[in-house]
């Protein structure tokens, strides 16, 4: 039997970057094939060429043994290639059925379409009421619409782009069941991810890309997560060095019944949140994106101020009504999720970006005048200590890659030696090497006596980093518990909104 899909010598050049360099691999019928690599390794470019969104500069695509060209996505769908994107394109105000009907290339009468949708749903156990409005559905349910939409075309190859990044562990399990059944029926699956344990659990073969080149094609079941990660980053992985049996000191950051107002139509406010972080402790806050993490960070950093002075206290001092500047003076630094335009100004130099948050704590301002020499020296230290790849303090923030900018931002806050540090998504879009460095810096800061709050959607990160863990869902926070005592299943249930374990605040 010929290969379902075969790529031979695919090369794609962008201005300044060779996104894919002579990449060749094959996907067999009914195989679940992982495409693995760090951000910027060239995974997305490769699948965009398979799905006809882009054209390769060189190389051939073979489909069931025949050489084909895929000029556009419509042609890809005609061949039998379906794709589920990371970001959904659904109209919230319409029903499931209406959304699917809108995305079809051919016009099919609504009744016939509904019958076919129900058939696909029962075959693969994708339970969903076709007449429900999308706005009322969870993220996992929305993803099912996209999968159903792709399956209606009876694809022979289904491309899934980072499908689990928005799902709870339980939803991930359900998705895997569907994918295994599809594969058993002969549909090949190209599964893009950087989550190694998922790939080990699900995939038959893994193709690893690094810097646009194919590094290895291997059997993930024969590999360890570590060995695959090292192939992905091309060097040895560093472990977080954490002192065993650490004890925590007195409560440092105490949050007591903190709430925020709903700021916009899509804003999820913080609802009556309470927690305590002790000296030397790292509290992890897990949760599916869009459950109030942004409002929580803004409320802690001071971008959103509370009327209640004692809603947030540091060492017993109420700071709830202070602005960000005053809170920084009290020792609280924060790093928001969005780097460009929030944590840093792209058009400004790194030196000027240091002035943004470090000017008061490090004496960069004397009588209203900015001491640019002090800002430059400090920026140079951040660049050196955190191995930021930049020409120097005078480079603009926008000229740095995402990972390097994140290292700079984290370094800028950590080197201020804050007594409380609140960070959101500290390693989002950052390569594994840089992520390890950032994690180690956070652990070291805690060991030096700071209280740290890490808000993240990456459970692996939180389980490795945090001492205690709480879950945020619809703006409400579960009780914090030691990481060692809370199972992945429990976290999953809390992320999905089951609040039995919720402490009465």
């Amino acid at each position, binding site marked *: 039997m010929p290969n379902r899909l075969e790529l031979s010598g695919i090369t794609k050049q962008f*201005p300044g970057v060779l996104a894919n360099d002579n990449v060749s691999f094959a996907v067999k019928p009914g195989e679940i094939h992982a495409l693995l690599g760090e951000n910027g390794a060239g995974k997305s470019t490769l699948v965009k060429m398979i*799905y*006809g*969104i882009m054209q390769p500069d060189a190389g051939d695509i073979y489909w069931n043994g025949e050489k084909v060209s895929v000029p*556009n*996505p*419509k042609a890809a769908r005609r061949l039998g290639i379906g794709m589920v*994107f990371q970001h959904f*394109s659904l109209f919230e105000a319409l029903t499931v059925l209406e959304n699917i009907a809108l*995305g079809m*290339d051919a016009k099919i009468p609504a009744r016939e379409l509904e019958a076919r949708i129900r058939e696909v749903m029962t075959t693969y156990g994708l339970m969903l009421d076709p007449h429900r409005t999308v706005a009322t559905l969870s993220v996992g349910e929305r993803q099912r619409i996209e999968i159903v*939409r792709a399956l209606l075309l009876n694809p022979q190859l289904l491309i899934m782009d980072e499908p689990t990044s928005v799902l709870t562990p339980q939803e991930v399990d359900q998705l895997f069941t569907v994918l295994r059944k599809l594969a058993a029926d002969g549909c090949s699956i190209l599964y893009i991810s950087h989550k190694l344990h998922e790939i080990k659990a699900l995939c038959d073969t893994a193709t690893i890309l690094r810097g646009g080149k194919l590094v290895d094609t291997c059997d993930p079941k024969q590999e360890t997560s570590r060995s695959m990660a090292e192939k992905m980053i091309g060097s040895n992985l560093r472990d977080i060095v954490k002192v065993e049996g650490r004890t925590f000191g007195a409560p440092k950051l105490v949050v007591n019944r903190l709430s925020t107002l709903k700021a916009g139509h899509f804003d999820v406010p913080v609802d009556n949140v309470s927690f305590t972080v002790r000296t030397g402790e790292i509290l992890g806050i897990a949760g599916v994106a869009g459950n109030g993490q942004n409002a929580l960070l803004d409320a802690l*950093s*001071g*971008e959103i101020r509370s009327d209640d002075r004692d809603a947030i206290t540091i060492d017993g001092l109420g700071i709830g009504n202070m*602005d*960000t*500047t005053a809170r*920084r003076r009290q020792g609280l630094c*924060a790093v*928001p999720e*969005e780097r460009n*335009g*929030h*944590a*840093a*100004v*792209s*058009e*400004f130099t790194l030196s*000027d970006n240091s*002035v*943004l*948050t470090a*000017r008061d704590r490090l004496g960069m*301002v004397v009588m*209203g*005048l*900015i001491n*640019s020499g002090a800002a430059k020296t400090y920026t140079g230290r951040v660049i050196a200590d955190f191995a930021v790849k930049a020409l120097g303090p005078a480079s603009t923030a926008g000229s740095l890659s995402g990972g390097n900018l994140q290292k700079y931002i984290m370094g800028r806050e950590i080197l201020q030696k804050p007594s409380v540090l609140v960070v959101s998504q500290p390693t989002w879009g950052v390569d594994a090497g840089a992520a390890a460095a950032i994690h180690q810096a956070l652990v070291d800061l805690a060991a030096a006596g700071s209280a740290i709050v890490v808000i993240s959607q990456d459970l692996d990160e939180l389980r490795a980093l945090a001492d205690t863990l709480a879950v945020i869902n619809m703006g409400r926070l579960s009780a914090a518990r030691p990481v060692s005592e809370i199972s992945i299943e429990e976290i999953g249930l809390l992320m999905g909104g089951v609040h039995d374990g919720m402490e009465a605040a």
Partner: protein
Amino acid sequence: MQFRLEKRPEPSRLMLYIAPLAAVVLTMVLGALLFSLIGYDGIGAVREIYFTPLLNPLKWQDLAIKAAPLIIIGVGLSIAYRANVWNIGAEGQYIMGGLAATGVALATHGMGGFWILPLMMLAGTAAGMAYASIPAFLKTRLNVNEILTSLMLTYASVQLIFYLIRGPWKDPMGIGFPQTRRFAEDARLSTLIEGTIVHSGVPIAIIVALIAWFVMSRTVFGYRMRVVGAAPHAARYGGFSENKTIWLALLVSGGLAGLAGMLEVAGPFQRMVPGFPANYGFTAIIVAFLGRLHPIGVIIAAIVMAVTFVGGAVAQTTIGLPDEATGIFQAMMLFLVLAGDLLVKYRIRRVQHTSAAGAA
């Protein structure tokens, strides 16, 4: 087939500086063409408007005194625009500054003393600030767009001139002319150089621009304005409140417009007249953008605009160009400067109509 604006990855630094120059040159070419088409001597118009003022040393003092208020107002506006606060009512703030200075001059008439001029300056600046605080208040409290309020307040201030110079401030010896009496010696700006008309407003304008340059590049105030304009979200994270920035931007730009009003009324006019509003406040908007919102750029841009004013007057007498020609040249220049800015930051791409269904 459609066209789409696409952001350039890295705008060329060179083009950033060439674009305004190209806009000026293109204005000359298009202006010559336009006026030739409607039956005037187009080439002559450009020559009279752009080159005569520069080549004739007698016109240089005219340039200086026309440029001075444009520099002072333009510097203020460039600071506000940096922070994305769109004060369009500098003309009104300029008028209020002129009126407040007139009030002081009339109230102290008959007294003498070196303190009168500084007091007029103070009054003019304060009046400009006070007038600009109305849009600031409305914006920060009720979220009313400052473009509309500041612009509309300009028309109210014009009416106030007419009321005052026809009523309470009317010159008792003016045989019915709607104007105030001429200010006393101590309330007038003396000429700097004997035999010229250059008054102390000219060096003040240069000093204002230099101070603004220092403030914008070296102080926390300047940093605040730049960061709020470049990334409002980051500014909030950095601890700069948006409302305070709006207040500061309007007070600084309003205060400088008021100062310019005082210098005009005490310098060239020496009394309040119906012709006091000379559109300096509006022209300064062009000056601010033409000068890249940079104080030194503003000085150069103000001189360019002064050239068109002086040259426009020359062209009226020498080749009979209508009064409005100056306005047409200035408007064309603003349009081309803004278009140049856009093209430096974006490029125009022709897009074939492909199906966007791929994103489904």
